[in-house]
Every structure is written in structure tokens, then in C-alpha cells.
């Protein structure tokens, strides 16, 4: 898989406070990478660094497109330097990425449609894309509503619509479902998956473990500014599956825990034959358990 985004040795200090420390990440083309940080200490900062809004104290970021490399804090790398075909400037890069984050404001007095229209004019995007995108995110009915009068969920949709308008190759979503009701969050998840199916690479942050587990091909667990674990959510969970057990729910509300090996076969069969068995669960941890284990251990050190 082709690597689209490389973050190397990023460190960020604000005054004496170190927020990010030695962050290394690679994101492959077409995948969803989730930056998972339940404690809330550096997600937005990392997105700002990657998108060139903030210069890191140390480290580098590279975004590789079809037409060259871009180093957000150094501008476009020349053709000779990167050894790739010439790139057509920063503007080109801007159209290739979409950003949805809280500190990317909307014009409160303008309607949803006009907010997108302004952005389309800035980027030279065909006007027919506006209604298309509004329909896609489910805001078509509200297109004349001014941004100030949108509900939280609608606002998130509009921010997402703007990020999607230029059909970016690389999409940054900073806590896209934060504070949304489950139904709206599920719709946003659906939109994110649709984008991925189109081949878009997605970098999202969340503090919601279940969201990351459901949505992401890879997750990076951030704790106190460092990446403490990285990988496919399922694989991570299996890796931390130390004590293999089975949890049985029996008729009458009784729970039985059995070791996950040959020795339990007889008992299992017994419950099945008796018709007492209602459900069987494996006891592998979810991301939340893994995170607790990781950070708990860290605190003990």
C-alpha cells in the first residue's frame, strides 16, 4: 500500500509544557486511521501540525500526492528535490486535502448554501457540486438556513460538506461526532465509510473507543503525548488477550466462566444438551480495556 502521510519524530511544546513527544505515524492510501486519545491531550494539535497551521517544535510531516510531496511547513518540495514530477504549487495541495475541525469557522449570517458557494468560488469548484454535496450530507432541505440557526448536528454536517466539496484525496476529521446524538453520529459514520469506498484516505481523531474500533483500519493510541500502541483494532485486542476464557450466560440468569481450551468441551456440551445455554462470549478485551491496561501499567512505573 502506498504511504500518503508520514509523520516523523514530531514534538510539540507550548512554553514548558510538552504536548506531543516523538510522534511517528504513517498512513496508507485509502485507509482510515484513527488517532485515539481519550484523555484529550494533543489530537487537535497534531492535526494542526500535519495541515501546516502550526510549526512543530521538532519533527517533520510529509504528504505525498500523485504529483509530488508537500511539506506543510516548507511549502511544496521542488521536482528536483523530491525526484518526482513537478507539482503545481500550494493551491494544488489545498484542493487535495479536506479539513473538518471546530476551529474552522462558518460565516454565521450566510446560509448553508452560501457558505459552500463561497468556498467553491475560492477553490474554483463547479457550482453543481454544492447541491450534490448538500444532498449527500442531508442538508438539502436546510440549504437556506443561516449557519447561526443550525443545530449542532447540522453544523457538523455542514462542516463535513465543506471538507468534502473539493473531493479531497486526504481528509482530516477532528472529532467528527463529538457531542452528536447516536443517530446523527451513525449517519456521519456512514458518510465516512462512503468516502473511504471512493478511495479517500481519512485521518480522524476521536476520544470514543467504540467509534475507533468500528470505523478505523488502524488506530494509534495516544497517551500523554506519546503513541503507546498502533495497529488494527481487532489485532490489538487479540494481542492483549492474555487469559483466554469463555463466558456463558445460562437460563435463569446464571453466569459461568470456563477456560478456553479442551478441558471445557465436556461442560459446554453438557449445558448445550440440557438446553440451559443462552449465549457464549469470548472474553477478549475491547480497545477500552487495552487502553486501561496500557495506561494503568504506565502509571505504576
Amino acid at each position, binding site marked *: 500500500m502506498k504511504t500518503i502521510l508520514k509523520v516523523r519524530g514530531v514534538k510539540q511544546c507550548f512554553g514548558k509544557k510538552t504536548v506531543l513527544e516523538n510522534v511517528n505515524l504513517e498512513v496508507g492510501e485509502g485507509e482510515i486511521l484513527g488517532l485515539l486519545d481519550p484523555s484529550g491531550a494533543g489530537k487537535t494539535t497534531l492535526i494542526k501540525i500535519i495541515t501546516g*497551521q502550526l510549526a512543530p517544535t521538532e519533527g517533520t510531516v510529509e504528504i505525498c500526492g500523485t504529483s509530488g510531496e508537500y511539506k506543510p511547513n516548507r511549502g511544496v518540495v521542488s521536482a528536483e528535490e523530491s525526484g518526482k514530477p513537478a507539482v503545481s504549487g500550494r493551491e494544488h495541495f489545498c484542493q487535495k486535502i479536506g479539513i473538518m475541525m471546530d476551529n474552522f469557522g*462558518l460565516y454565521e*449570517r*450566510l446560509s448553508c448554501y452560501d457558505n459552500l458557494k*463561497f468556498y467553491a*468560488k*475560492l477553490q474554483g469548484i463547479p457550482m453543481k457540486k454544492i447541491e450534490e454535496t448538500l444532498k449527500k450530507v442531508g442538508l438539502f432541505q436546510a440549504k437556506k438556513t443561516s449557519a447561526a440557526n443550525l443545530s449542532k448536528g447540522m453544523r457538523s454536517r455542514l462542516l463535513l460538506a465543506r471538507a468534502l466539496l473539493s473531493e479531497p484525496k486526504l481528509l482530516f476529521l477532528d472529532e467528527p461526532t463529538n457531542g452528536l446524538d447516536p443517530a446523527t453520529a451513525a449517519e456521519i459514520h456512514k458518510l465516512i465509510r462512503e468516502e473511504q469506498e471512493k478511495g479517500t484516505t481519512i485521518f480522524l481523531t476521536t476520544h470514543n473507543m467504540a467509534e475507533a474500533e468500528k470505523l478505523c483500519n488502524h488506530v494509534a493510541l495516544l497517551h500523554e503525548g506519546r503513541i503507546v500502541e498502533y495497529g488494527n483494532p481487532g489485532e490489538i485486542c487479540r494481542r492483549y488477550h492474555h487469559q483466554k476464557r469463555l463466558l456463558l450466560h445460562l437460563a435463569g440468569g446464571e453466569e459461568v466462566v470456563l477456560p478456553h481450551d479442551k478441558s471445557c468441551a465436556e461442560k459446554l456440551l453438557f449445558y448445550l444438551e440440557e438446553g440451559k445455554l443462552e449465549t457464549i462470549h469470548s472474553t477478549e478485551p475491547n480497545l477500552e480495556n487495552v487502553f486501561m491496561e496500557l495506561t494503568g501499567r504506565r502509571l505504576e512505573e
Partner: protein
Amino acid sequence: MTKHIKAILWKQGKDTFKNKEILVQFVMFPILTVIMENAMEIKGMPEHFFANLFAVMYLGMAPLVSMAAILAEEKEKNTLRVLLMSDVKAIEYFLGAGIYLFAICMLGAGVIGFAGGYRGRELAFVLAAMAVGILISILAGAVIGTYSRTQMMATSLMVPVMLVLASLPMLAMFNERIAKVAKYFYTGRMSLLLNSMGNGQEIAEGLWIAGANMLAAVVLFVVVYRRKGLE
């Protein structure tokens, strides 16, 4: 003109009519002029009295307040960041907002001049003088807007500046000392020019003062912009 500047002009056009605080700046003095010039007939009052008075207040206030408020709001609401991330250059932003404000203010200036009874060459002279003043005010507004991080901050900075600029000419009528200072400010000088309709000598002096004021505004702007940027 770049597509970025065109887009900013379009956005300002859409936004102004929904932004009452800004809109009132543009229409108040032109309307006041129309009303006062038609309603008041006082014996012995100089010709064009209200038009000249309001013209100077208008150019000291409307462009300055609007430019500062628009910039500060874009910063506070984080919309400026979106523009800059869309590769809009700072100069494109200032040109977009500046051209728009200049056009609107000149419309207001036209109303004031016409309602004040100016016609033909005199009207052209008044409009030219106001155009220069409006430009300086836009620059001054850009300085305040660039310096401020929030709308609150912009307001607390622009109110005293605007009061001084807009009221100097009026106070100068009543006080010799103030008159001496006022003539070094573009609004004070503008008032003198309009009231005398300028001979060659006065126009030359006026141009000097306007030039010096403009230079001061540009220098201030560069200093503030270097320090603060557009973040």
C-alpha cells in the same frame, strides 16, 4: 483580479445586508444628510453645512469601523483561517475587503454630495476628496483589525480613534487650539477643504497632509502586520 478576490467581494456583498452593525454605518450619514439638508433652513447658515459636516464624519467612521469589524470577526470566528488554508494570500484578502468597502463608501459619498447640493465640478471635487479620506480610513481600520484578536478588542480600539477622527473637525470650529492640531489630521483638513472648496494652495496642502496621513497608516499597518500576521 484573482478568483480569490472575486470570491471575497461576493461574500462581502452577501454578508453586508445581513450585518446590521455594518449596514447602519453605511446608511446613517447619507440618510442624515438627505434629511437635514431638506428639513433645515436656518438663516445665515453656510451653504452645504450639513453635507460637509456629515461627509467628514462619514469618512472618519464608516470605512474604519467596517474594516476593523470585518477583520476582527473573521479572526474571532475562525473563518480567516479557512481562507488562508485555501491559499488566499493576505494581500488578496485586504484587497477584497478593501475594494468592497471603498465601493460601498463611495456610493454613500455620492448620496451625501448630491443631497448636499453639490453638482458638476464641485461634486467631482467633493468626491475626490472623500475618496482619499475613505482610503486612509480603510487602512486605519485594517491596522486595528489586524492588531485585534477579537471583536471586543477591535471595538475598544476603534471607538476612541473614530471619535477623535470624526469629531476633530467639529470641535475645531469652536476651539482655536484644537483647530491648530486638527489641520494635521486628514479629517480635519478635509473639513477645511470642503468648507472653502479649495484654491490651488489649499488643495496642495491638503494633498500633503493626506499623503502624510496615508504614509503613517501604511507604516503602522506594515509594523502591525509584521508582528501579528493574520493569525
